[in-house]
């Protein structure tokens, strides 16, 4: 039983990691927590559903959802956040703007797609695999694999490519990066695109796992992924992975032993505990304040 829940939790946790890295990347580069990330995730799942209903194949639908969600990420930055950076606004302004964005996206989804839960095709369901007493659904295997591959790709991009180098440089010191010839605005847009794209993949995976899609799905999942990012140390990519797994497994156990109505509270409790005990998370670095 416990091992079963462990596996369930790990699979779920991998998907949370995919969303959590979106928070981490944007925070790393802008020192901003993108509150609208959860709504972006919900948007992507709805887009995938939309394209599937338009009779596109499953893979093309997901690919298009990834593309369009990445673009949404860029749009949010360009229309709302970049002007604030130019004006040197106070940090509260960005926070409130992303809250507003989340609100707009979620409510527009409600208006255009109505609030009911819609079925998402179980396209990765090829049956169960039995390992001893543990049953693993093929969807879970796909979730783990795809998440893993994507996280590896992300890590490779960030650590091995020129663009990734530009991202890391901008993270450390955007002014210096700019002076070194890096197109900082492009790097920021690319970061938002990556964040949106990974959220979209998570959207397809989780949508396919639970097989339902509804406008409010971003709210809870967004908060849980945020808890995962904070637990791992926001801004640190591998931290988001570990954080996601911990949140996924904890949620799985909580659902079994506390009942499903309190399963959502686990992520909150983790978040609050981390913020109280060690706000920088497991792998985060402490900012030294210069007076």
């Amino acid at each position, binding site marked *: 039983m416990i091992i079963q829940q462990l596996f369930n939790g790990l699979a779920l946790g991998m998907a949370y990691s995919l969303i959590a890295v979106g928070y981490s990347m944007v925070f790393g580069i802008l020192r901003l*927590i993108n509150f609208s990330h959860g709504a972006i995730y919900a948007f992507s799942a709805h887009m995938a559903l939309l394209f599937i209903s338009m009779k596109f194949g499953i893979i093309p639908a997901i690919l298009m959802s990834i593309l369009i969600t990445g673009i949404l990420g860029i749009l949010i930055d360009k229309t709302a956040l970049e002007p604030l950076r130019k004006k040197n606004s106070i940090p509260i302004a960005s*926070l409130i*703007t992303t*809250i507003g*964005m989340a609100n707009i996206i979620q409510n527009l989804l409600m208006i255009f797609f109505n609030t009911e839960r819609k079925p998402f095709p179980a396209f990765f369901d090829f049956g169960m695999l039995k390992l001893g007493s543990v049953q693993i659904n093929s969807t879970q295997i796909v979730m783990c694999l795809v998440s893993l591959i994507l996280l590896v790709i992300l890590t490779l991009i960030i650590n091995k490519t020129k663009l990734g180098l530009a991202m890391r440089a901008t993270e450390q010191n955007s002014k210096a990066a700019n002076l070194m010839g890096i197109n900082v605005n492009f790097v920021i847009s690319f970061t938002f695109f990556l964040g949106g794209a990974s959220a979209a993949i998570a959207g397809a995976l989780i949508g396919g796992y639970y097989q339902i899609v509804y406008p409010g799905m971003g*709210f809870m999942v967004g908060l849980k992924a945020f808890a995962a990012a904070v637990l791992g140390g926001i801004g640190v990519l591998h931290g988001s992975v570990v954080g996601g797994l911990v949140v996924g497994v904890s949620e799985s156990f909580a659902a079994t032993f506390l009942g499903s*109505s*309190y399963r959502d509270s686990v992520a909150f409790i983790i978040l609050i505990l981390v913020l109280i005990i060690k*706000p920088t998370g497991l792998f985060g670095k402490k900012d030294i*304040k210069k007076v």
Partner: protein
Amino acid sequence: MDKKMKKDTSKNFIFKMETLIEKYKIPIGIACAAVLLGFPYIGVNQYIMRIAIMIGIYSMLALGLNILTGYTGQVSLGHAGFYAIGAYTASLVSLKLGAGFIVSAIAGATLASFCGLLLGLPTLRLKGTYLSIVTLGFGEIVKMVLMNWDKVTNGTLGLKNIPRPSVFGLKLTLANNGIYYMMLVLLALITLVCILIIKSKIGRAFMSIKEDELAATMMGVKTTRYKVLAFVISAFITGIAGAFYASMIGFIDPNSFTFDISTLIISIVILGGMGTIRGMFVGSAILIAFPEVSRFMMDYRFVVYGIVLVVMMRFRPQGLLGWKSQMPYKFPKLAVQELEKRKKGNMQTQQV
């Protein structure tokens, strides 16, 4: 140069406007009072009365949030939680213990402010966004508890038949306009309390925290204590509004206190003007009344709240009424007397 000239002309305009208001403040005050007091008698129906009362309630909520967010700079996304605690506690006290409105409301507000204390204490060290997310979590946890603690809160079914407030045995209802006047009384009291707090060392401490928390700490302001105080005061006011709302509407359920409500309250504060008192009334009037004006607005009103946030931050972060006063600082009476005394003393020595 052009931008500076624009700034100067707008400062001039503000100065002229404020001087005018200051000069005619007594007739303006009497006119406003007359309108507010006479409002029920200018032929408005129950529907409009209800809107007016909701504007009043949301003004109270905005005033409460404003103390924490507008003055002290701590963005709370979970104020619906305090609203709910005030409403539910007051309702339960009056339903189960038969207490009158004032006792119930104070009980509700006290429990809400106690929760504000519990929430504020551990979150002291958290930076802006983290604090906001924790308040969001708080709001959600409150809703979760309300939905699941069936024995006490009746779960998703909510509480009904919440008694109207009574004063000296007379029941205040919509029909006899009693509820409307009670709203005015509560709103006036809350506004007065806010003004008294802001225009004192407490208000200055709050503002210094928002402006530069480190500098405030280095000047000897106990920033942690004041942040918690801001939470407590804010929660108390919000709790009172909750108690009144429950009593007015007679029925509450967990779905009346969602994250969308928290978003609405903060939209009002930002639209009207963070850190101003006047902005709270105007912001609430706009965001509560406008959806009633058109069917379109009503359906899309939640999107509008989000748009308000984004647009205001982009184009006018100080809010509609958020101008900086160009009037001279208002000195306390005793200080004015002292300055007069000195002036006279100077003149006398000059004559000699």
